[in-house]
């Protein structure tokens, strides 16, 4: 009458796997699905947070690694200005820690000033300073202040500026985004913890009958607790791992086929690229799996102890 297949066909009279809790029944499977889904969400949130952080870092690094040299027109003839510009470029090229130097064309200069000076024909006549865009070597950037001192001395009317103003603003933004990511991750982790603890407890509750019978035939509490732990360790760990692996696969897919170059690169760096970034990702994911498994184990263990202690008190 039961849906269970008729019990013939098992080979030997042994305890399969030597674990005497039911292998898989609906509540345990629900627990496993909950573990998978919640660990998946947590792993996605952590990965997304890291990718956002990294995007901000990249942007920040881009801004930080840029500087500008300005050469004032003073009262020189255009040719003299050009000479001074060439001199600055020569000096910059000879400095360590600078990756590239580029003289902005007159048009670029004008475009940059347009928001403030307007699209007047006048700009052509105004003595605007010439700008040189400098890209620093990110790993070993040149010291901007020293450079500024040098250039000031060597070339009349020239100086070097870092984009310090922007960096400050971006740091603020990055900090906000960072905290937001942590908050999201914390929220999901909390939700996951509640759900997983509950599901583990429920899965165990539905084994109450089995636990009672084990107790009645003389099993020690330690033995029963060990059986429960074995079952939940295995079921919980594998399910949590499955969730994280799915998240990994999705990010891996993003690393290859995301439409945006930035996302592709971010996912790639997070998973396979920069050793430190990848390590951080994998450690966090491992922590998620371990934490989820631990929570479910602890929840199941507490439940089994409560069942054992409340058993046979009265009625």
């Amino acid at each position, binding site marked *: 009458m039961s849906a269970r297949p008729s*019990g013939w066909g098992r080979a030997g009279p042994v305890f399969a796997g030597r674990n005497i809790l039911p292998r898989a029944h609906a509540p345990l499977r629900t627990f496993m699905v909950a573990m998978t889904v919640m660990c998946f969400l947590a792993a996605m949130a952590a990965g997304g947070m890291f990718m956002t952080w990294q995007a901000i870092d990249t942007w920040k690094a881009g801004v930080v690694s840029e500087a500008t040299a300005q050469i004032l027109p003073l009262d020189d003839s255009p040719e003299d200005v050009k000479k001074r510009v060439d001199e600055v470029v020569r000096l910059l090229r000879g400095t360590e820690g600078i990756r590239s130097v580029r003289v902005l064309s007159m048009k670029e200069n004008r475009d940059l000033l347009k928001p403030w000076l307007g699209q007047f024909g006048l700009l052509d006549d105004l003595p605007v300073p010439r700008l040189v865009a400098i890209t620093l070597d990110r790993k070993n950037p040149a010291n901007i202040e020293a450079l500024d001192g040098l250039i000031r001395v060597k070339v009349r009317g020239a100086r070097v500026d870092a984009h310090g103003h922007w960096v400050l603003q971006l740091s603020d933004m990055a900090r906000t985004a960072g905290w937001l990511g942590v908050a999201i991750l914390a929220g999901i982790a909390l939700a996951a913890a509640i759900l997983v603890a509950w599901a583990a407890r429920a899965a165990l509750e539905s084994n109450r009958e089995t636990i009672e019978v084990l107790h009645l035939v003389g099993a020690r*509490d330690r033995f029963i607790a060990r059986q429960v732990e074995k079952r939940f360790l295995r079921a919980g760990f594998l399910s949590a791992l499955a969730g994280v692996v799915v998240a990994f696969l999705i990010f891996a897919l993003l690393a290859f086929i995301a439409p945006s170059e930035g996302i592709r690169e971010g996912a790639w760096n997070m998973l396979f690229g920069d050793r430190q970034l990848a390590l951080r990702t994998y450690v966090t994911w491992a922590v998620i799996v371990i934490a989820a498994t631990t929570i479910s184990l602890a929840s199941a263990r507490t439940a089994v102890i409560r069942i054992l202690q409340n058993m046979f008190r009265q009625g």
Partner: protein
Amino acid sequence: MIRFENVGVRYGNGPEILRDISFELEEGGFAFLTGPSGAGKTTLLRLMYLGLRPTRGLIHMFGEDIATLPRRRFPDMRRRIGVVFQDFRLLDHLTTFENVALPLFVDGKRPSEYADDVMELLSWVGLGDHANAYPPVLSGGEKQRAAIARAIVGKPRVLLADEPTGNVDPALARRLLRLFVELNRLGTTVVIATHDHQLLNAAPQARIMTIRDGRLTMTAGGTP
């Protein structure tokens, strides 16, 4: 061996099911427990297998007062007591063999040590062909026999059987009773709760305990 002194039991705020139960069962004794349905036979057995604490009174088993026995000593006590539950209490996800071998398994014994003994016992109760079947596909009588096998497989010093022959034919009932008598001869104290008067007649040496209106009366009977 088993000594009750003024034991009383009530469930929750209900009426007192057992009142002032006092008796002593010597080691190696054999007793039938009868009484009308709902009299409290199962309740009395539950007291003996530590499945229920009495509302009042003292219960001594194996020379210890089980009302004050700490929880951690329960498993040791339980391993000396075999119980056939009225509703069998087999685990549906284990095979008949595994169910019967459960007391040995939780005792830490290895399947290779007890496999032969268990199979022999299963054959004796007529379940040799069903060792690998799961309880949900067993017939009522087969489940009952599996429950009996599980209760006696550990050679307990006390055997408590609650209506152990309610689902089997008279011939099989007598065969199972022989099993209990044999066990009793080897030194096990046996208490069988039953309605089956033929079973009572088949073991004339047994003492008969009757519960009626919460009180226990006991025939003298002779130890074997």
